[in-house]
């Protein structure tokens, strides 16, 4: 960890960049405009092995480190944030809980398809009345002694990848007699209703739905992990996810910086390119510093995780800083593009709309500050 990734990570970055440039970038604007979730492209990302990077070879994964996943998410996110979050959520929220907490049978049943990108999993945590306060889960699960099935009732909000044509299973948190527990609810289970897709500010090509569970009955072997451990388990999942979202935000910020630099060198006003005006160049210089910081925080957190070191604080710092940098980057880039940054002909508009949610999803900036404050030993 000397601020530089290995030769192999950089070689992999070049592959993902090529893939993103030819398979995603040319279509990103149209998918965004049409609110289209491109299943074929997700399958192609699966063929490239992106969904299986961090999982063991016995389930079809590559056994690679978390850093390699961050590289992939950053490069995909640099051309399309929607596909970046699809990858991040598919791995981090879909497959990761099953990999971490699932039984052998559960892993055998769900992981191979997710790892090859043939199927997507989702994580139903947030509720209409509980986002940041995830411990306030109102969804309930009770064991029906007569049928031997778990019966789940409740509602979930903003669940990524929950309604795609290839969604196979949704991990749902629910309150039980022993505390919050996690359950695997297969797509199509009677009583599970995937609500119509949201009309979102951004991430138009990403699949997001509310879920309602009404008398939704699942077999007892679909309980994920130990009953009552659900709260602790999803906090661990979210720590990983924060590094991934930081990488996604880094991709967004880099895209804006690169586009704004190119535009400032081309656009003329008052007899010279606008790059010559310090009002422009200094903003981009400051943004470059922020992007570099975001990069270092992201890959430092990934390195800590890969090396078995504590990384909770580093992940929160990376997520907080990178996502706020991404939002700043879209604002600065839009200002430098001027009117051209306000119309859909430039990708800057899409990044502007996509960035805001980075400060909200998988732990708001406020929650990250709480985590960091707690790590500092502050009495909260």
């Amino acid at each position, binding site marked *: 960890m000397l601020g530089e990734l290995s030769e*192999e990570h950089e070689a*992999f970055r070049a592959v993902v960049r090529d893939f993103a440039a030819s398979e995603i970038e040319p279509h990103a604007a149209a998918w965004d405009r049409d609110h289209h979730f491109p299943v074929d492209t997700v399958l192609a990302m699966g063929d490239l092995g992106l969904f299986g990077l961090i999982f063991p070879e016995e389930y079809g994964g590559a*056994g690679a480190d978390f850093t390699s996943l961050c590289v992939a998410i950053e490069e995909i996110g640099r051309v399309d944030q929607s596909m970046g979050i699809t990858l991040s959520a598919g791995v981090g929220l879909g497959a990761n809980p099953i990999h971490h907490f699932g039984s052998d049978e559960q892993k055998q049943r769900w992981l191979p398809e997710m790892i090859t990108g043939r199927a997507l999993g989702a994580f139903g945590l947030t509720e209409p009345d509980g986002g940041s306060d995830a411990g306030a889960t109102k969804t309930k699960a009770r064991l029906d002694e007569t049928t031997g099935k778990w019966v789940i009732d409740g509602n979930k909000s903003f669940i990524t990848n929950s309604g795609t044509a290839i969604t196979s299973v949704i991990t749902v948190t629910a309150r039980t007699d022993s505390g919050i527990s996690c359950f695997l609810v297969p797509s199509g289970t009677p009583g599970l209703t995937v609500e119509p897709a949201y009309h979102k500010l951004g991430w138009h090509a990403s699949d997001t739905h509310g879920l309602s569970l009404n008398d939704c009955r699942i077999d007892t072997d679909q309980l994920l992990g130990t009953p009552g451990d659900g709260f602790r388990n999803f906090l661990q999942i979210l720590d990983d996810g924060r590094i991934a979202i930081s990488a996604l935000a880094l991709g967004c910020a880099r895209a804006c910086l690169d586009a704004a630099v190119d535009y400032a060198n081309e656009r003329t006003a008052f007899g010279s390119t606008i790059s010559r005006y310090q009002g422009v160049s200094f903003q981009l210089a400051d943004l470059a510093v922020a992007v570099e910081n975001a990069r270092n925080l992201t890959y430092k957190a990934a390195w800590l995780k890969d090396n078995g070191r504590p990384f909770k604080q580093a992940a929160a710092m990376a997520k907080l800083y990178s996502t706020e940098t991404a939002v700043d980057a879209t604002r600065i880039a839009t200002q430098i593009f001027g009117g051209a940054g306000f119309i859909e002909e430039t990708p800057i508009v899409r990044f502007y709309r996509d960035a805001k949610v980075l400060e909200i999803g998988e732990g708001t900036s406020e929650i990250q500050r709480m985590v960091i404050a707690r790590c500092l030993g502050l009495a909260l």
Partner: protein
Amino acid sequence: MNVIVCVKQIPDPALPGALDSSSNTLKRDGKLILDESDSYGVEMALQLVTAAGGGEVSLVSMAPNGEVSGLRTALAMGAAKAILVSDPALKGSDALTTAKVLAAAVQRLGGADLIIGATESSDGYTGTVPEQIAEILGLPSVTFAKKVTIDGSTMHIERQTEQGYDEVTSPLPALISVTAGVVEPRYPSFKGIMAAKSKPLETVTAADLGITPVGWDGAGQTIVNVSQAEARKAGEVIEDDGETFTKVVSYLENLKLI
């Protein structure tokens, strides 16, 4: 079935190239990448070996500096091993010397059932090296292959022509040059990239292969001058006076296009 692919590592075409004014050749000192036109040959070789149900793909390459990242890319795609002929003395080698060196590298690998090259490199464009290698090795050679199937010790080739394609049959072993776009080169996987790190990659000098003289000393050519291509002249502008279409029609008739 064993296949050897001749691959070239070239300066990244996405970056601005520069000429060495003392030699009038392209500067190749920095990082080199796998020539995209060779990725088709690597992919075709991998597909042929898979179709044959066994064997392996090997690579031969030549570069004045010891760059291997382009070879690692091809190894990450699935090639099994590589020989890089790397020697400062190679700088300035002409096409024939390159062919002699690569032919010797092929022989060092013990030959193969099939040798594949691109029709031309993306930085030198001589377009002659594969056929020279075939001549040196005494192998039949088929240029511009766009589709290849193997049937025992016989190869059937669809050979691209201006009008269509020729159907050619050749005994093996043989050499073919493949055109760009004939197959879709695979993206190396992360596992492939990691595996490529430990695949055999032997670096030898031209002298190790017994090929001397090479480089400027062995070249039968001197690049005496390089000049800018002539700028394209501005086209004819026709103001529309309501009868413009007649001028457009007569212009096209003059070109015998209509």
